[in-house]
Each structure stands twice: as C-alpha cells, then as structure tokens.
C-alpha cells in the first residue's frame, strides 16, 4: 500500500466525511509531525501500533567503495521502530489465516 492508496482508503472509510484533498493534507501533516518529532529527538508512542525512537550509531572509519580510501564518519542517529502488541499479534495471526 502506497501513500496515495492510504489516502484513498481513508477518504472512503472514515465515518467523518472529508474531501480526499483534505485527507491528503491530513496524512501529509501527520507524517511531517512524526518526522519533525524524531528530528528533535522526541520519541513517538502510539498504543497498539508501536513506538519510534532514535538509536545512536557511533563514529566509524568507512571506505569510499570506488577508491578504497578511508573516510572517517561521524556518529549519527537513526530512526528505530518497535511494533506494539496489537500490531505484532495481528500481523502474526494474518500469516496463519
């Protein structure tokens, strides 16, 4: 399912009727809000879905794959997702069903 398919489904299924254009803006706003939160080092916690947090990657010496030259890479943060209980259980039950 892509972002545009998600927008279509939401426009069809919400009890509250909203034009697809508004649903599109809302989906973009939700994702921006989430990205912004992580960019500020703030976790995201959604019960039954999961949590997003940052994991630290320490500095390391990498290599330029073309020239083989060593380059030092500074430490950085990467986004990490941990699925919540309901999501884990439904996805796993989906496999059997």
């Amino acid at each position, binding site marked *: 399912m892509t972002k545009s398919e998600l927008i279509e489904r939401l426009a069809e299924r919400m009890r*509250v009727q909203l034009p697809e254009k508004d649903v599109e803006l809302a989906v973009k706003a939700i994702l921006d809000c989430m990205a912004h939160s992580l960019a500020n080092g703030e976790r995201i916690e959604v019960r039954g879905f999961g949590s997003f947090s940052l994991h630290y990657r320490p500095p390391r010496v990498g290599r330029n794959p073309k020239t083989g030259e060593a380059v030092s890479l500074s430490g950085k943060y990467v986004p990490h997702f941990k*699925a919540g209980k309901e999501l884990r259980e439904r996805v796993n039950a989906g496999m059997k069903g």
Partner: protein
Amino acid sequence: MALTKAAIAEHLFEELGLNKREAKEMVEMFFEEIRSALEQGYQVKLSGFGNFDLREKKQRPGRNPKTGEEIPISARRVVVFRPGQKLKLKVETYAGTE
C-alpha cells in the same frame, strides 16, 4: 515527552482546522489502515517517511529467561520499519543527549 495520538490530533486541529472529532478519527484511522494492510500481508510504503516491510521468521530455539528452560520460538511474521532517505537525513544531524 513523547509524541502521542492526542498530540498529533491537536496538531491537525491547529494546522488544518479539522474539528477535534475529525482530527481524532483521522489519526486513529491512519494507524488502523496501516495495521490492517500489514495484517493482510501488504508492505506499506510512505514515500519520504519510510516503508513498513514484513519478514517471515523461521522457528528458532529459545529459552525462558526466568527458568532457563528451553522452548522453541515459533515461526512468525514480523514488521520491520525501513526509514526513507528524507527521514534519515532529518534525524541524523540530531545532536541531542539520547
């Protein structure tokens, strides 16, 4: 402080002028549609943010950490999130104290 559904709904209310009921349902359904697609075995691709992929895990040996008893961990399907390039770039420069 963590970002929650309530805070996201509040943001939709303030930024887009959805009323509180619409904003709350929007956020609820947003996560439900993603769960539902994953439950049905579909990958979810949100460009600019990231992909939720499904991975099949084989049965493997495990242990009850309390009793030390050996019990197999059954085969299962799990969700993995792969952040997109845009999200990675936004987050990478965070210089905080986490």
